[in-house]
């Protein structure tokens, strides 16, 4: 970032040791210094840890506990009961071979998830590839990346309602198609449908694919690609055999982001689906609005379990910590 930094200490650090070795200190003094340093570091990290403990870990514990509580029409009852779970899976055995509501909902959610994931991956990869390999000037790279980032800093709700004037019954798309004589009455499936849900999800969350994939690509040694060319590989072969395998960490991290967001989403699916499409996140919201906290918590535990399954399957492929 700042190439002149090393100059600032030229002549000073030059003769100094580079690592963290304390060659001039005795063993005991070393461990004391380390202990004090470690304690001080612990103090520095403590406030953040406290926030996570109070507003993330403890709440998760409560979700798990409450999911096994009883409840009636208006309050939760602190007594062990699996009603939250049994109510959720109500009819799953009786209705066979038809699918019960909860399974249908999860299948629908997974389907939306899969569609969004494949589209964001395709678009995200292409955009990241363009930015990483075709933009040669650093300044332009920053400017174009910023261009992709700015919408991320603006409101999701507004980016959702922004589709209304385009896709609505009298929207631009319908008017244009009618004007061209392609259709004779407005297409109803453009807005408040699965189509608009996926469109909005892709619109909102492709950013989460672009950033990690770009981050992986930028680290690929350009000489590897030249070597592939020199060895006679076509552009396509280089892409498949060199670029994609080396971008895998970014692809996995981006996928984790997109999948977890879509699995738990209820806002986008609510607004863009006209509150008509059920999803895993929407069930929790509905239960909450009905003040059935244990049932909501049970659904949250189920959603959490499925999300963890997907993530652990994905992290088998790549060690996240190494990639930061």
């Amino acid at each position, binding site marked *: 970032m700042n190439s002149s930094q090393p100059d600032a200490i030229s002549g000073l650090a030059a003769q100094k040791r580079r690592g963290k070795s304390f060659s001039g200190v005795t063993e005991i003094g070393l461990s004391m210094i380390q202990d004090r340093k*470690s304690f001080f570091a612990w103090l520095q990290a403590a406030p953040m840890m406290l926030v996570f403990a109070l507003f993330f870990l403890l709440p998760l514990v409560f979700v798990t506990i409450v999911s096994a509580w009883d409840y009636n029409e208006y309050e939760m009852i602190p007594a062990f009961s699996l009603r939250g779970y049994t109510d959720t899976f109500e009819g799953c055995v009786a209705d066979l071979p038809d699918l019960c509501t909860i399974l249908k909902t999860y299948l629908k959610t997974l389907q939306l998830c899969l569609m969004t994931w494949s589209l964001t991956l395709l678009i995200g990869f292409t955009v990241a590839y363009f930015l990483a390999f075709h933009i040669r000037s650093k300044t332009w790279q920053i400017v174009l990346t910023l261009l992709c980032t700015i*919408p991320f800093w*603006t409101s999701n709700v507004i980016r959702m309602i922004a589709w209304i004037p385009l896709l609505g019954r009298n929207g631009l798309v319908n008017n244009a198609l009618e004007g061209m004589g392609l259709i004779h009455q407005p297409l109803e499936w453009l807005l408040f449908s699965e189509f608009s849900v996926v469109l909005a999800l892709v619109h909102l969350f492709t950013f989460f694919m672009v950033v990690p994939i770009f981050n992986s690509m930028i680290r690929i040694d350009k000489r590897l*690609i030249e070597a592939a060319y020199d060895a006679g590989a076509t552009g396509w072969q280089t892409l498949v055999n060199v670029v994609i395998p080396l971008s895998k960490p970014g692809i996995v991290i981006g996928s*984790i982001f997109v999948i977890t967001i879509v699995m738990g989403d209820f806002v986008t699916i609510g607004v863009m689906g006209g509150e008509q499409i059920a999803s895993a996140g929407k069930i929790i919201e509905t239960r909450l609005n009905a003040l059935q906290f244990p049932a909501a918590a049970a659904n949250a535990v189920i959603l959490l379990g499925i999300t963890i399954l997907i993530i652990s399957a994905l992290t088998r492929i790549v060690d996240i910590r190494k990639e930061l």
Partner: protein
Amino acid sequence: MGEKRSRSFYVLAAFFAAYVLFLYGPMFAIYILSFQGPDGGLTFPMNGVSLHWFSKVFSGTGIVDIGAAFRRSLELGLVVMVLTVILSVSAGMAFRKSFSGATFLFYVAIASLIMPSIITSLGIALEFRLFDDFMIKNGAEGWTTAMGLFTSGLGAHLTWTLPFGLLIMFAIFNRFDSRLEEAARDLGATPWQTFRHVVLPIILPSVVGIGLFGFTLSWDELARSSQAIGSVNTLPLELQGLTTTVTKPDIYALGTLTSAVSFLVIFLALIVILVLQARQRRHGSDAGKGMV
């Protein structure tokens, strides 16, 4: 990679341009439509040009008290921003040394980042509800609720902004030359002096970036706040509520105003970052020439 632009460059450039259009197009549609004339509707064509819908938002007629929600979101966003910056920088410094629980904190931050928001939100709501029940049962006089904008709401926002702050700190320190700190120590600087006069000036542009993330993520936060905000709503929550009921362009005017605040903050942050970087380059060039 030859020197001449290949055909794939133009194909990909067209794809990128289409993506940018896809990103910005719909947003610009509502920015334009918010200037719809008094008789205009939710879609094109424009029925005259006016500030009618903006004045409607400001006078508060028709829709809920937007001014109050606007102020609440702004206050919360600023508090979240300050806390995100302080806690992230502090924890980021801690991660450069080893401390017990470092790996744990890292994984908790990642988990908080990717946890479906509705679960976090539900958990915080349950936590506060159980706490309230406990207080009432144990005879706290006139206890109503601990839930609120700056308790549960603030906590919910921090679970979302802090992971971003921490990851940015990691990115900063991955590129940080730690010999600078050693040099400062060798010259007799205390840890605080080292931080204040050596580390902070170097990382400052990125710290502004953390502040930018802190504010904008809070300003636009919706899913995590939804269950955990208590009796009052933030602006995004009001907006979401309006999507199902409003049939007039005042929702666009409100959207334009909200975006204007976002853009203003982004613009200011980028300016500050650029100024700081320029200053760094200027001062950096003096380095090593014996100047203090």
